[in-house]
């Protein structure tokens, strides 16, 4: 069962490529972290997934249908946009009523409980809520819709650390209970580390790596040893990052077979180090162009 499948998915704005040639296959039941620097194309990918945008080229299928294709498809996907926009002049209760009247599977009990648990006054205008409360209201609307997939674009970016923790805790409690698939983006790995079991790294409009966290952790290593070329590494090791200091070389490699070379020290990476290796690789790939331009 696939929750999101993209093939050569591309979105261009004029000549600028926001997302290029993206091919993905995200299994159902995962909490997927979409990580990359600002401007990498995370929002574009998520908006394509919910049907806010249409692809320039390639295809995207979400839960077996074209995103935003009709009421049934819309009902299956819950979405909280980057700014967690709400109607400033309408009350919390108005928002819930809007959800109730436009979504066939709306769960008013869940919505009411969450609002009560958050300590929000239903008569309060959304424009008077704090950023964290607005994000929680938007999440409540998306959850009470009872979607099969929840798409959250930078849901915690604007929140303070406490609101951030509460938001993620609420999200985890919900997904554990309802086994909803979730895709959430962030430019900080630390936000995603504790909650995600699947990771997509996106930089400069392209997907660099995607996979289950356990699998990624089990196939990436840091190798340290006497100075050498990448070509001298054991077969099957794909170099992600390479740095050398004096007589010592350090590599971050991906390898499906365990590295067994007595001349190298093999270490496990943290998720953050793994992501950083991919991010710096894409920066390194761009550097020659920059130098040529100078």
């Amino acid at each position, binding site marked *: 069962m696939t929750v999101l499948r993209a093939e050569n998915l591309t979105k261009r704005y004029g000549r600028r490529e926001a997302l290029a040639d993206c091919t993905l296959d995200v299994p159902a039941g995962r909490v997927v972290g979409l990580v990359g620097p600002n401007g990498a194309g995370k929002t574009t990918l998520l908006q394509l997934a919910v049907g*806010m945008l249409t692809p320039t080229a390639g295809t995207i299928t979400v839960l077996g249908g074209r995103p*935003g294709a*009709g009421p049934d498809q*819309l*009902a299956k996907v819950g979405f909280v946009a980057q700014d967690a*926009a709400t109607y400033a002049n309408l009350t919390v209760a108005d928002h819930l009523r809007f959800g109730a009247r*436009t979504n066939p599977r709306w769960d008013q009990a869940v919505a009411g409980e969450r609002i009560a648990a958050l300590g929000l006054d239903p008569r309060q205008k959304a424009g008077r809520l704090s950023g964290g409360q607005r994000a929680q209201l938007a999440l409540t609307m998306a959850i009470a819709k009872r979607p099969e997939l929840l798409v959250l674009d930078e849901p915690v970016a604007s929140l303070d650390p406490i609101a951030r923790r509460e938001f993620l805790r609420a999200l985890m409690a919900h997904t554990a209970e309802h086994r909803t698939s979730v895709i959430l983006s962030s430019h900080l790995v630390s936000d995603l580390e504790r909650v995600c079991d699947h990771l997509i790294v996106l930089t400069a409009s392209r997907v660099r790596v995607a996979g289950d966290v356990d699998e990624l952790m089990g196939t990436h290593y840091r190798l340290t040893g006497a100075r050498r070329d990448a070509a001298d590494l054991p077969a099957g090791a794909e170099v992600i990052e390479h740095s050398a200091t004096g007589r010592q070389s350090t590599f971050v490699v991906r390898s499906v077979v365990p590295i067994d070379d007595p001349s190298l020290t093999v270490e496990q990476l943290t998720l953050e180090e793994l992501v950083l290796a991919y991010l710096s690789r894409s920066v390194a790939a761009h550097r020659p162009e920059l130098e040529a331009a100078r």
Partner: protein
Amino acid sequence: MIWFTWRQFRTPAVVAAGALAVVAALLMISAGGVSDLYSGVAACRTDCADTVESFLTRFHNSASGTIYYTTMAVMYAAPPLIGVFWGAPLVAREIEAGTHRVAWTQSITRTRWLATKLGLVGAATAAAIGLLSWAVTAWAGRVDSAAADRITPLVFGARGVVPVAYALFAFMLGVTVGMLVRRTVPAMATTLIGYAAAVAAMPLWLRTHLAPATHETPALDMGKLDALMISQSGEMLIEPDPVADAWTITNRPITTTGEVFTGPADPTRCGPDMPNGSCADWVGTLGLRQDVVYHPGNQFWTLQWIEAGVFVALAAALAVLSFWWLHRRSS
């Protein structure tokens, strides 16, 4: 979605209903006074010109005269206000605040989202301006028939069905501009300018082509001249009286060969030292004709329905454009 659209639209709707109620109250209170003034005209059977003239003078000098001009201003202001305050923010404000992403990811298509908005607010527009125009047209009926001027541009645009069509056009213009511009305040300003241009172009250049005008060339009646002026160089400007109960488009003296008569004046007959009427008598001997083009008062409803049709068609075209745009652009 209907409930939600109503919830968003509630405050503007209440404001509009309040304004409508104020106008209705003013008209009802003053209607009795107009009837009293009019009783002389109603009783008059023959040679009523003076009675009518005296009614109009007394009417315009009374409080009802103020109400007449106030309602005229209201009739012209209401459609653009609807375009600016109901139309322009309808979509632009959602895009500006990002709430369109909330609306478009509930389980309703964005086509239905826009259709509900346009349907509900469009219906409110037609109802509000329809009621207003009906009340004003009925209230001013006696004055309009006494003054026989309802087909003249200023009165025409404030009576009957055209204000409703203006309002629907203004509303759809606001919505469409808002979708294209995506920011509320610039959309409001653009809507106002666009609306003013379209509605001003109508009487200035277009309305006369909506129905055939009457063209006549009777002999120039020197007893019915609005103005006769002579410049220092002897150039003459003669303006015949406008046609009664009609919208006069062209009205000028022409010579027997069909050219517009502009003099030169005969210095032996025309001039400051000549006896009164000498110049007019001389002009009378030239065999001039009057070249007059006009729309008679009985074309009022023909022009009303055609012009209303034009603006409703424009509104419909804008609606089609807005749905097309909604699907073409995404985000």
